[in-house]
């Protein structure tokens, strides 16, 4: 007999929701509706909207469908888990359910706001607009009549494959993905945990709010990561110990393999920020 212990650590579960408190408004040249699937723990389907003009882009999204996740914080029903020979330890370090991404190309910065649905207490996280260094690939395909080209990049621990349409000439895309010569119609990472699909593009000029709510405050990405790292170090010790405790309580004649996955939501590392 063989047992399996899964340990997944969820650093951030990203889910987006419109934030309130619009102040200054500018005009978007284009509005793109996206569907976003996050399969980090369970499957969460989001609807998202990208609004952009020449100098900025605002990407906002909200959850429309979410599968229930079991055993969120501790092992429940030990016996049943043992019968299944699989034990799952999941630790959610940083529960977040709403986010907004604002890219200000003219200033060279990108602002992300993670907040809890009920109340926003987090500041905007500020970082330089990531240079994604896309590699153009030779594959082409037509997505519902739009001729699309393929490109590839590695960003924050995930390798993304994107399909962009030069016939829609904007260099923005969903979330932090930007910098291709055409709108990103479809993008996914190679683990299929993050998927974006454009549903509809409208060219009608409309209002967009790319301003920051000053009452939330701003924190630099490096500082933010330092804070998270401290929180994480405190926990990771406990996680390793939890694994040892479960393993050492197994019955005779059973083998156990442990698999620890640290799921930091969409971003798994921030190596690109080192030295900057």
């Amino acid at each position, binding site marked *: 007999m063989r047992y*399996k212990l*899964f340990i*997944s650590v969820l650093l951030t579960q990203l889910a987006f929701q419109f934030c309130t408190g619009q102040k200054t408004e500018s005009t978007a*040249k284009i509005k793109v509706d996206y*569907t976003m*699937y996050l*399969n980090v*723990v*369970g*499957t969460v*389907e989001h609807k998202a909207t990208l609004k952009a003009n*020449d*100098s900025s882009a605002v990407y906002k999204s909200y959850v429309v*469908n*979410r*599968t*229930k996740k*079991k*055993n969120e914080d*501790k*092992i429940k029903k030990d016996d*049943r888990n043992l019968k*299944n*020979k*699989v*034990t799952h330890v999941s630790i959610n370090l940083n529960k977040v359910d709403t986010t907004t991404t604002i890219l200000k*190309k*003219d200033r060279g910065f990108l602002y992300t706001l993670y907040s809890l649905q009920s109340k926003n207490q987090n500041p905007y996280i500020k970082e330089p607009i990531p240079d994604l260094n896309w590699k*153009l690939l030779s594959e*082409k395909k037509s997505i*519902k009549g*739009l001729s699309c080209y393929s490109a590839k990049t590695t960003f924050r621990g995930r390798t993304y494959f994107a399909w962009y349409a*030069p016939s*829609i*000439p904007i260099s923005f895309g969903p979330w932090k993905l930007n910098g*291709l*010569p055409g709108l990103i*119609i479809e993008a*996914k990472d190679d683990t*299929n945990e993050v*998927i974006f*699909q*454009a*549903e*509809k*593009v409208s*060219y*009608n000029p409309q209002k967009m709010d790319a301003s920051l709510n000053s009452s939330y405050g701003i924190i630099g990405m490096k500082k933010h990561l330092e804070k998270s790292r401290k929180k994480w170090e405190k926990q990771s010790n406990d996680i390793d*110990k939890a*694994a*040892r*405790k*479960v*393993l*050492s*309580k197994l019955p*005779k*004649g059973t*083998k*156990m393999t442990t698999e620890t996955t640290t799921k930091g939501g969409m971003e798994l590392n921030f190596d690109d920020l080192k030295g900057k």
Partner: protein
Amino acid sequence: MILKENNLKQSFLLFFTLTSLLGVKAQTSIEGIVKNNVNKPLYNVNVLLKKDGDIITYGISEKNGHYRLKTSKNGNFKLVFSTLGYQTTIKAIIISKKQKNFRFSPVLVDKTETLNEVIIEPDKPISIKGDTITFKTNFFTDGTEDNVEDLLKKIPGTEVDANGTVTVNGQEVEKIMVGDDDIFGKGYKLLSKNMPAYPIEDVQIFKHYSNNRLLKGVEQSDKIALNLNLNKKFKRIWFGNLKASLGNKSFYRAKANVMNFGKKNKYYFLGSLNNIGENATGELSNILYNTSSSIGDDQYAQDLIGLSPRSLNFKKNRSNFNNAKLLSLNAIFNPSDKLKIKPLVFLNWDKNNFFRKTINTVQANGSNFTNRENYNLESKKRIAFGQLKLKYDISENQTLKSTIKYNNNDYENGSDLVFNSTSTVQKLNQQNKRFDQKIEYTNRFKPKKAFTVTGRYIDDRTPQYYSVNKFFFKDLFPGQMDANSVAQKNSDHMQFAGINARLLDRKKNENLLELNVGNSFRKDDFKTQFSLFEEDSLLGRPENYQNKTNYQVNDLYAKGNYDFTLDSLTLTGSLGIHQLFNRLESKESTKKQSPFFVNPEISLSYDLNDKNIISTSYSYNTTNAKILDVYGNHSLRSFRSFSKGTGNFNQLDASKFVLSYVLGSWQDNFYANTSFYYGKSHDFFSTNSIIEKNYSQSQKILIHDRDFLNISGNFNYFIDFLSSNIKLKLNYSQIEFKNVVNNSGFRRIENKNFTYGFQLRSGFNEIFNFHIGTKWVNSKINSTITNSYTNNESFLNLYFVFNDKFDTEIEFERYYFGSIEKDPSYYFLGFSANYKLIKNKLSLGITGKNLFNTKTFRDFSISDIGTSTTTYRLLPRMLLLKAEFRF
């Protein structure tokens, strides 16, 4: 050294200069400023360098309209400028080796006509509908997936470990179906490891899965199941695997799984052979295993005589000299969307040999003797089993299911026995024919309410013919001095018919009400015919040793169950009301009885907090006597014993109380699990026996008040600096009852068992882990005499998991018998190593069993009339080379 370093630096410098020169030479730069017709620089304009429709490189204009792109290619290109609100401008450009720098500063013209919107509506890779998530495989695969396992690894949230266990978000799946057809149940690895991935169009995950689709949401379930839907275009495929093991002394094991899947029909063939002591039908347990229980499940005809060894206090396959063969065919047909037909047949042959020597010492009320048996058994069996399942979906909310099972088993047993130096031959021929039909109708009349009506009919026969070529009963039959052999023909013909209606009602507050109303009828035709022979000529059939009993039990019942959950408190109450109509007919008399009784049960579970859970239950239960309790004359049960029932109706009343307490959880340093069980049988069957050296004779008698007590505790403590868990296990049980031996009057018997031991298991997150433990079993029986023993069992297991491809396990065991004077200790060593040679194709392994080549194993047991020492012959040292190949 310094010189060398300098040289190195110089060569690097040279290298860099050369490459950068070459680079400069090859790169062409194109730049310029993009403006509109009022001379305003345009920001964010896409500039594409295209050749034959391919994009070679690109740039994006900055705030001041400046762009720059670089290429190392030569030839004819198009430079495309585009941005929202302006017409796309295209410039032709020829790049040759001569010109390095190009400058284009186009003026973009406003777009007059604009599109309002573009609707894309892409094919969804994932769709979530309630508890079903569907993944379109073509979105997730890249063509390198070989088998279903590989495919599932690509589906987000789904993981497959090195051993093939499939989990969805950490929970193991219940089954993997193909096109809603399930063949393997929990044995799904056979499918996921062997079936190719290419024909699968989508993968569905069902959460809160119920085996009966209509009971989903009504039944409580946290099971997860997977379903693989096949592409319509795909033709049927063959796949499967072969496993073979060969060892010393011509030990072998071989197994072939062959599957043929089409969209409508699916076939699965299994063939299996072994002579290493394994039960071949175990391979089918996942297929035959029925998860849902229904009326009639526990109804079987009774055997009287068995020559095969009872369950040993020891691993059975160590003493099972066998030669097993199994062949099975399984299929699923879907003639229409509504109808599903699942036939299954299997044939199983086995030839077993078993050797044992027993010394029985009896000390009971005037009988003091020692018997020695030297027993050699050879048995052959043939099992033929057929099953046909039909499922018809009448409508969205109604299903009709039917299951028909038939088996026909033949057993031939022959044993050579030396009983106190008398050589004896026993022969037992046995047949079992069983026909079982079940029909079930389910109707979900409201989203959270459903009822099921089940009807079942079973016909089961177990005729046995038993002969012994010696006569040990001279004292019982003083008139038959010439008899030198005995035989008995006996059979139980059981017929069962039952109907049950079940209502499940999930209330708005999620509490579940379950009601069952039904009637079951069981009839046993029980016959025994005992004969005395002199050589082959019949001497007689002694009266009082023949049975012809017809026993009928009709049970009209209603049962109710209600689960009540309030936060951390769960209360379950159940009540069964039974009106019985019993009829017992024998040669001598016909009796009738119609008892009425009520069986209540209440249980309570309370989660004080995350760390403390208390649960308790109390029940009062009345059970009706079974056929072997009610027949009235003696029947032969072995070469030297007779027994009989009470010859009358009886109901047995019992109450039981359970209390258990759990402190902590698996993730805590301290984790304890304790329970207390007390059962009182207000009435129970005991025996009134005559025990002599050559024979014994016992009769069931009804006695009041038997007490049973069990206390167990399991304490875990995780030692941080050793990274290991120490476990202390304690168990105490005590039973008190009475019986009669050799006309003694009631003898009070007290049996006390105390088991205690500890284990230490490492929890290293590394290659190596160990598990060591020992336990003592102390058993004591007080009757007119006192017998006791203390045995010890110890083990050491070492685990090495080097990587996903290679793992090893070593197992060492020691058994010690405190009451055996000569050779009280037995040692066993075994190991297994597995290596995956070619991923998904070929794996190799080696297994060693009984490496110390221990030839025999001796066991000591005690009873209220004496002690017995039994020596078993064991399978010798075995080394097996294994190979598994997939096709």
